[in-house]
């Protein structure tokens, strides 16, 4: 494959120094000035080099790092709220907030993948550091010590696979933790020479952060232990303490909300702390005992079912917490809890019961997320829509225009506005931007849960699909479907921004016809050709759509939109054309003009339909 693509594949027979060894091996056999580094599961966007190489006009710049991003949002590492267009991933706070912050202090670091290096800088420090299993951080420290610079470009320019099961996830976490903590003994950022004070603080905080397992353990078990032993660290527990405690807690929560700028979710973050605390303790102890660490590659395959042993610390915590609450109840019943009639006695009971219940819920939530049955497909389906023309292969002719709800090279979830026969074979035309591709598919599943209100959803598996067609689908998924998905799901408005927008827009919003999210197939009649597109939202006065070509503002063109309550024929005026991915995907805003009476009625019925959420 490398030969076909005009590339050279360099492999080595020995495994000395793991990933750093591989990189150094290739470093000696390549001659380019710049080296882009991607893990094997990562797919860069076509404009990766275009957007990163420009920084190297600074002769002292050693590397540009971009965010890690995972596209398999069905991994347990994600929390998705499709209807609200909201996704959460544990690493978002780090890559979208903390790394830009570190960049401000010239302390951004190479994160193992999705980066580009100046080869001269690497040669200057003797190649990638091999003394640690987290070669990335150590290499960065050594570059900074030699007065090279690093930059963080805060835009997702590549995507990879998140670990699908707890074992792989913990393998990855443990490697990071052991590698980072071991830096305290090899190149301790506090006293290694050549770093600036902000760099020392930033790098030490990175290493120190991996010791979070110990305080987490205390937070998780302390309330339950208090309930069971009746030993309280705070005395007296009175109003003077209580109001200060409430103020402290409020500032912490509000501060987190403001500082995390929409990326942090306290509940999810804590659930992950719950999932990781024991592993972090294990890694810290191992590092402090200077036990040898091994570079274990993270498995990104199908995913393995979790074992009881892997979640034993969390199960133990659930048992402890759920045991402490009835224990407190027994104290009340048998009147063995002192001073329940006094403030300190009642607060002494209520506060630990509250936190014990919270910790129990966190532990249950963590266990639930990793023990859910693995139903993922082997290959992830990208969440996004393309217009799909379908025609039945059987004698009964049936054809129409639908859209995909998810898509990959082996199949799609097809939404239509007419029922299809189960196990029917279809001829499909996928409108992948400017490239309509034809293939055959069989209906393997009818999603009855999603099929109502005029919508019908079917699982389609491609049959005898050519490799070239599969390549086109994959290419379209990464180049267009994924960026569009990110445009909706990766956007975070801060609390302040939301408040400001709400204040200034409230009158305008009231005056405007409300836009409703509808993902519907439509055909725009361009002078030279038909444009098959997918709508994003619709109102009585306009709509927006995703197109593979930019449309000129002010132009008028006929449009035909398929809906579950009939077809809408009309003319639109293009109001704006905004780039999503240069040369591949554009968001087009249109004003509806000259609708026929019947089309207006269809539109009104569509907007009033209760099945709106189906299309969302």
């Amino acid at each position, binding site marked *: 494959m490398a030969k076909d693509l005009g590339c050279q594949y360099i492999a080595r027979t020995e495994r000395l120094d793991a990933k750093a060894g591989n990189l150094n091996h290739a470093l000696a056999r390549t001659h380019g000035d710049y080296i882009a580094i991607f893990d094997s599961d990562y797919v860069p966007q076509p404009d990766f080099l275009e957007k990163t190489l420009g920084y190297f006009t600074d002769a002292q710049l050693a590397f540009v790092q971009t965010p890690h991003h995972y596209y398999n949002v069905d991994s347990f590492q994600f929390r998705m709220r499709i209807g609200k267009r909201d996704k959460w991933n544990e690493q978002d706070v780090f890559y979208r907030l903390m790394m830009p912050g570190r960049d401000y202090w010239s302390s951004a670091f190479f994160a193992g993948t999705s980066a580009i290096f100046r080869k001269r800088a690497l040669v200057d420090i003797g190649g990638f550091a091999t003394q640690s299993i987290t070669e990335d951080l150590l290499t960065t420290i050594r570059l900074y010590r030699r007065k090279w610079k690093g930059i963080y470009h805060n835009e997702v320019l590549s995507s990879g696979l998140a670990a699908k099961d707890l074992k792989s996830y913990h393998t990855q976490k443990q490697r990071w933790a052991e590698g980072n903590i071991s830096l305290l003994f090899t190149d301790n950022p506090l006293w290694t020479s050549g770093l600036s004070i902000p760099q020392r603080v930033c790098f030490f905080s990175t290493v120190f952060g991996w010791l979070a397992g110990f305080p987490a353990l205390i937070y998780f078990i302390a309330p339950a232990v208090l309930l069971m032993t009746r030993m309280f660290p705070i005395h007296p527990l009175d109003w003077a303490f209580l109001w200060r405690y409430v103020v402290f807690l409020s500032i912490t929560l509000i501060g987190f909300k403001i500082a995390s700028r929409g990326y942090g979710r306290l509940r999810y973050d804590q659930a992950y702390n719950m999932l990781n605390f024991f592993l972090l303790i294990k890694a810290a102890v191992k590092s402090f005992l200077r036990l040898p660490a091994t570079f274990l590659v993270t498995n990104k395959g199908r995913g393995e079912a979790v074992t009881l042993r892997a979640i034993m610390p969390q199960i133990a915590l659930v048992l402890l917490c759920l045991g402490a609450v009835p224990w407190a109840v027994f104290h009340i019943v*048998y009147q063995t809890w002192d001073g329940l009639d006094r403030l300190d006695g009642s607060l002494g009971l209520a506060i630990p019961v509250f936190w014990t219940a919270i910790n129990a819920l966190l532990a249950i939530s963590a266990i639930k997320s990793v023990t859910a049955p693995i139903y993922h497909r082997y290959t992830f389906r990208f969440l996004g829509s393309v217009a799909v023309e379908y025609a039945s292969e059987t004698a009964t002719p049936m054809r129409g225009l639908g859209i995909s709800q998810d898509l990959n090279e082996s199949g799609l979830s097809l939404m239509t506005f007419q029922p299809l026969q189960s196990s029917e074979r279809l001829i499909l035309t996928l409108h992948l931007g400017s490239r309509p591709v034809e293939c055959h598919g069989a209906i393997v599943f009818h999603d009855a849960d999603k099929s109502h209100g005029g919508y019908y959803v079917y699982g389609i598996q491609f049959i005898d699909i050519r490799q070239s067609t599969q390549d086109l689908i994959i290419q379209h998924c990464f180049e267009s479907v994924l960026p569009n998905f990110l445009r909706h799901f990766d956007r975070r408005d801060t609390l302040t921004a939301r408040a400001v927008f709400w204040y200034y827009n409230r009158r305008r919003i009231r005056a405007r016809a409300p836009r409703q999210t509808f993902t519907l197939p439509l055909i725009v009649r361009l002078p030279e050709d038909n444009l098959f597109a997918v709508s994003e939202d619709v109102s009585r006065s306009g709509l927006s759509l995703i197109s593979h070509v930019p449309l000129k503002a002010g132009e008028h063109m006929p449009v035909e939109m398929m809906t579950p309550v009939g077809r809408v024929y009309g003319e639109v005026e293009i109001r704006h054309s905004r780039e999503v991915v240069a040369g591949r995907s554009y968001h087009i805003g249109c004003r509806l003009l000259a609708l026929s009476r019947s089309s207006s009625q269809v539109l009104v019925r569509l907007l009033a339909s209760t099945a709106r959420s189906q299309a969302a």
Partner: protein
Amino acid sequence: MRPVTLLHHRGFLALFACSYVVALWFAFLWFHNDEIAIRRWFNGELPIDHEQAAVVAQHWMDIDLTERHSRLLGQLADVLLRSGNADQGIRILERLVTAKPGDAALRMHLALILHQAGRFQDAERHFGILLEENSTHG
């Protein structure tokens, strides 16, 4: 069936939860048996079991006294005195006074009990300490 699948089995979880709470209940009763008994004797909810009371008193005489233990021992002494087991009750009060030598009310209580029991020399000693402390503190 893999053991982890049991975590999603509602029947198993319900059964386990019930068993767990019952086990905890027994553990609680075993762990706090003395405490519950003293409280019940003190409130008159349970007739005094002299043998058990003596065992409890003996057991509690040897432990480091916390505030809660002191309160419970005080209640136990009261129970024993009411039940006619004055010697055991006095021993507990003496243990409490040793633990809290500055507690004048407790010492007075002990002195009066000793006086009632006819142990005048012991009572006199405690009255003397009280008078001495009273004169010292003005």
